[in-house]
């Protein structure tokens, strides 16, 4: 078989789909797992900074090799199994908490295109429902860990977590319905494309048709161009829709904190009351998998927020992967310019995700923990109603303000 035959086989539509998907899966997993370990590091450093301590800074420059050292430590530890546990569920629970967090990544558009290949593993039409369905399965890992450990602390942590996740799933699901009413699709790549065209969903104003090339031709008229582009992007409907969309962003963000068991809603693992909650009895890799699962869920949730409300991989004035010139440099060929911009888009997406992760860490070390009844009241009496009212408000704006 010579080169042209191999090339033909590789470019067959089915084969092409398989190997590009595999490449995307490997790349995304690599990025996310790397991001997980450095989120743990960032959590420790940022918390130390907030509390006026130093944090881990001994291993490598600024402690940057600390995550690798931690991983080695956890692998080398004894995997201890306490007496009286249900062995099968005790083994499988950490995996069950890790898998859903990873599966959510499958539908996230983490970039525009590279050489015409869309940077999403599965751009399915039910993308958002997939996110909710898969993340609702994540509760099994926690519940089973709490139950199988045969320990009171673990059990209470599992019970708390499951009731909390079920309660906040309602406001989570209801809060994004305004997004679908405005955009008109559940497909996540299309939601991003809508935001590329019409502006991020949480932005009330948006410069429409602002172009750097035109600005370069007429540098003196910059201010007029800015005003004209904002005027072009303005409409009464968009301004009024900003109210419900911003409300749904707030409800979604807070519900995500509850869904990922992050402070101020980290009741399932409240240290003062429950030791470490559902993973009290786990050691070595079991514990590490819970830890990884928690942070992977945070990253996946940040990715969903970025995709739904913050414009996904797009940034104003940054072209997507179909661009043909790179800052007008003549020695960069057209295809290479597209690839470079494609990588810039991926970088923008993960930049936004990292910003949200830092926000989550900041909140954790700033806001005190809720009491359990307060948490439930907030979910059922406030966010649930707010999300329902929000849907009504969006519908009214869409009907009466053309």
């Amino acid at each position, binding site marked *: 078989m010579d080169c042209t035959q191999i090339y033909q086989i590789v470019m067959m539509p089915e084969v092409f789909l398989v190997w590009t998907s595999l490449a995307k899966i490997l790349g995304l997993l690599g990025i996310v797992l790397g991001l997980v370990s450095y989120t743990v590091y960032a959590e420790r450093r940022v918390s130390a900074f907030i509390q006026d301590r130093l944090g881990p800074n001994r291993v490598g420059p600024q402690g940057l090799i600390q995550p690798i050292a931690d991983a080695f430590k956890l692998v080398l530890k004894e995997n201890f199994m306490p007496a009286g546990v249900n062995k099968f569920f005790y083994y499988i629970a950490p995996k069950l908490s890790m898998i859903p967090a990873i599966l959510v990544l499958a539908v996230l558009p983490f970039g525009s295109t590279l050489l015409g290949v869309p940077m999403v593993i599965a751009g399915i039409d039910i993308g958002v429902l997939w996110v909710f369905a898969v993340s609702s399965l994540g509760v099994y890992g926690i519940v089973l860990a709490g139950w199988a450990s045969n320990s009171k602390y673990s059990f209470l942590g599992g019970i708390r977590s499951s*009731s909390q996740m079920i309660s906040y799933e309602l406001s989570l699901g209801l809060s994004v319905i305004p997004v679908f009413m405005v955009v008109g*699709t559940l497909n996540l790549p299309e939601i991003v494309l809508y935001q590329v065209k019409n502006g991020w969903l949480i932005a009330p104003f948006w410069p429409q048709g602002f172009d750097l090339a035109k600005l370069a031709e007429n540098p003196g008229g910059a201010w007029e161009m800015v005003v004209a582009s904002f005027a072009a992007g303005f409409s009464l409907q968009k301004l009024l829709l900003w109210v419900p969309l911003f409300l749904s962003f707030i409800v979604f963000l807070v519900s995500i904190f509850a869904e990922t068991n992050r402070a101020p809603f980290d009741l399932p693992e409240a240290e003062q009351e429950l030791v470490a909650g559902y993973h009290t009895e786990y050691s070595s890799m079991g514990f590490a998998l819970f830890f990884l699962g928690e942070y992977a869920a945070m990253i996946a949730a940040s990715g969903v927020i970025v995709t739904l409300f913050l414009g996904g991989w797009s940034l104003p004035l940054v072209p997507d992967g179909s661009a043909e010139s790179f800052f007008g440099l003549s020695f960069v060929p057209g295809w290479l310019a597209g690839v470079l911009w494609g990588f810039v888009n991926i970088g923008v997406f993960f930049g936004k995700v990292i910003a949200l992760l830092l926000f989550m860490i900041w909140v954790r070390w700033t806001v005190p923990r809720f009491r359990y009844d307060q948490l439930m009241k907030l979910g059922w009496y406030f966010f649930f109603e707010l999300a329902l009212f929000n849907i009504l408000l969006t519908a009214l704006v869409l009907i009466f303000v053309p």
Partner: protein
Amino acid sequence: MQLAIFWIFAFFMVFFGALVVLLRNPVSSAMSLVLSFLFLAGLFMTLDAFFIGIIQVLVYAGAVMVLFLFIIMLLDLKSEKQRKLKVGAWLGGGAVLAGFVYTILHVVGRMPGAEQAMPVLPGGVGSDVARIGWVLFERYNMPLQVVGVLLLVATVGVVILSRKELK
């Protein structure tokens, strides 16, 4: 290819469905039911009914079964595990199962048009979510509203009944 996928999903769905009854630990039974639901969702998706498949996972596997598991875990499982199967129970269960299968075959076999495929949803292009939405709100708008009111009444009823100071 599609047929092979159908048989894989159907086999595992029935397999885990059987495990729900055969396993003695109620938590294992509940988890088998979750797996059975997941494979059922896979079957829906091979029929291009992505929306129904994903709702199956979201509602049954993700919400209803979590509540089931929640309640099962609060039970005393040791007494449940020690219960032995009795011959009478086997025979009774078998009789009920046979009657049920006979009824299903009898009814479906005689239903006019049962061997034909359902017509494709109207609406042409677009995802099946949009098409189901159109059909629900255009053709079956009234029944949908009635079901909505029924659910609302049930919800209000539950709220009233579960209040502590019922007078």
